[in-house]
């Protein structure tokens, strides 16, 4: 008589962006499949034939939580293809917009998607009993971050002012000054986020992964830089296609990205901190020290802590950039021309790649998009396997919870990953 195969199946994982299930086979060597069933929307297919100036507005709709990142990466790729130069002010405004969006995204992930697991709640609605202070912090900080993104973009979700060449409108100084006051006011709140996260009972786990992020001189890289890793990778962003390759799997609509040598890697807040910790603001470093967080960390659950530190860091950097610059309306003119251009940026969840081939009429002939969750896909499965192997003697419910917590710690976005 043979025993029935032992398996754990999470049919439709809750509290993540998009749709996936997790299948775990417990017999023998654990087998793991992240079955991402988010339906394909074929952005790379229908972008063919669209105009260069629509691309940013269209790809923004890949994701409702990181629209600014898709938009910025695409617009930069289009500008690279058409050899458009932008002003220093445009670069700064893009950076402020991206940093505020990253913080808002991290807040949603930490409080609404990840934290309920550690509070024994099904969701944030249940957290109202007992965690009201935390919810208040989330609402307060996210409101300011969204207002900052919206101030520059016209709206925080799917901004409208951001087009190839620059911004169609720049808000008056007074609006920046008022948001600057709000940013100053939430600085202490952001420190409390770090403390909230540091108090979570994050599982102890070591993954021995390669951590990939962008790096540049002078500060934390956001919208450009070199691609580096904790295992010695150091390449120009333009060489992206020589470093990574993407392949289709038969059980998921998302493609899986790997380094050319075949190995998996992790991108996102933890990867950024593992590579660039010394570039953090002093206040962020002090907070990290206070909660006892050190790099390099190979515990993927620490991605939560890294995100909380980035919220603090991003607020400091936004204050710095808004405080030390005077923004004004700028004229710019973009002429379509044939070319092939790519851009790599740091989205909230990590490395994001867009590439476009554009013809002389400014029409897209080919589009290629690789998202952070495609980059992390193989590493999530690798970590799940190790986690299940190390905990195989625990109860099934415990294993299931651990698996869910691990996937959530990566802050995956399955809508992005399929696109």
């Amino acid at each position, binding site marked *: 008589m043979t025993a029935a195969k032992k398996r754990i199946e999470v049919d439709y994982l809750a509290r993540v962006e998009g749709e996936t299930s997790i299948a775990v086979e417990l017999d023998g060597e654990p087998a793991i499949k992240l079955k991402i069933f988010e339906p*394909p929307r074929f952005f790379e297919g229908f972008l063919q034939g669209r105009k260069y100036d629509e691309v940013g507005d269209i790809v923004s709709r890949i994701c409702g*939580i990181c629209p600014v990142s898709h938009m910025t990466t695409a617009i930069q790729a289009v500008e690279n293809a058409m050899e458009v130069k932008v002003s220093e002010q445009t670069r700064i405004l893009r950076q402020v917009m991206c940093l505020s969006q990253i913080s808002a995204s991290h807040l949603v992930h930490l409080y609404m998607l990840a934290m*309920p697991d550690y509070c024994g709640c*099904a969701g944030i609605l249940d957290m109202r009993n007992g965690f009201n202070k935390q919810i208040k912090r989330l609402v307060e900080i996210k409101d300011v971050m969204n207002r900052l993104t919206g101030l520059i973009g016209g709206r925080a*979700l*799917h901004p409208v002012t951001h087009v190839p060449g620059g911004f169609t409108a720049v808000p008056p100084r007074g609006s920046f000054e008022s948001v600057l006051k709000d940013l100053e006011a939430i600085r202490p709140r952001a420190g409390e986020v770090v403390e909230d996260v540091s108090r979570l009972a994050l599982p102890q786990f070591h993954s021995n992964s390669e951590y990939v992020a962008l790096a540049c001189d002078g500060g934390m890289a956001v919208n450009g830089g070199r691609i580096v890793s904790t295992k010695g990778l150091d390449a120009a962003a333009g060489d992206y296609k020589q470093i990574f390759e993407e392949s289709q799997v038969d059980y998921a609509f998302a493609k899986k990205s790997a380094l050319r040598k075949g190995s998996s890697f992790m991108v996102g807040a933890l990867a950024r901190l593992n590579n660039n910790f010394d570039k953090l603001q002093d206040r962020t470093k002090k907070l990290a020290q206070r909660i006892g967080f050190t790099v390099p960390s190979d515990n993927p659950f620490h991605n939560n802590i890294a995100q909380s530190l980035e919220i603090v860091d991003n607020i400091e950097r936004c204050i710095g950039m808004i405080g030390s610059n005077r923004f004004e309306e700028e004229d710019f003119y973009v002429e379509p021309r044939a070319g092939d251009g790519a851009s790599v940026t740091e989205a909230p969840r990590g490395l994001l790649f867009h590439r476009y081939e554009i013809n002389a009429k400014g029409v897209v002939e080919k589009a290629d998009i690789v998202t952070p969750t495609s980059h992390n896909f193989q590493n999530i499965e690798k970590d799940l396997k190790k986690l299940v192997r190390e905990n195989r003697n625990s109860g099934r419910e415990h294993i299931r919870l651990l698996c869910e917590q691990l996937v959530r710690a990566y802050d995956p976005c399955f809508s992005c990953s399929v696109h």
Partner: protein
Amino acid sequence: MNKKTKKPKIGIFKYSCCAGCEFQLIFFQKYVMEVFEAVEITYCKMLQSSGKEQGPFDVALIEGAVTQQWQADQLKQVRSVSRRLIPIGSCAVCGGVPAIKNTRQECTVQEAVYGDTSVIHSVKAHPVDHYVKVDGYIRGCPMGLRDLNEMVTSLLLEKRPDFVEYCVCVECKLKGNICVLAAYGQPCMGPVTNAGCGALCPSHNRACYGCWGPMKDANARALADLFETLRLSRQDINRLFTGFAQPAVQWKSGQVQ
């Protein structure tokens, strides 16, 4: 029994989209917690791990375009257990960005993305009302907070919601904007696009690109003709009328080839 103690049950379903409307809803900006005190979210995968998709629901909110057969099947099931069903956001209301793919052969877009298309079973993108009867629309990309507020308040007051049903030009005039179409010759979709955004793009020096989808009595043909006089190519005009509402009948006459 006090009627007010019974909170309306709300189910939220996501199909093919960016999930931005769900973020707009579950975050509801500053009012989020007040709203959640007044209603009961009984199904929403992104929000909570508990919850039953079987219903019944006082209101089912549907996000995203329908691009898979299973979505259409589930949608019909949800309709049968819901007192009201309302599509939220352009994808669910009029096809949105996912419906741009309808301008090409399904197999062409599939092959552009996947090497092995034997595992891909997508169908043309359709809005929710293509498959089931709906009880109003919350438009926008992402959906507008004014109409969302109106929906929630109407639900609590048991009144019929009064959604915005006029074009972007009205909001532009109310704001005192200079018309970017008449004054600068920019191809503005405002005259045929449903309002609610507060004339966002023209207020930021650019032409409306139609992200809220058609208003109901849009004269798409007249606007397409006007665009031709602005020396836009037929392809450019077609792109404007297929960017956010390819399947919508109101914009068909603007979709010249």
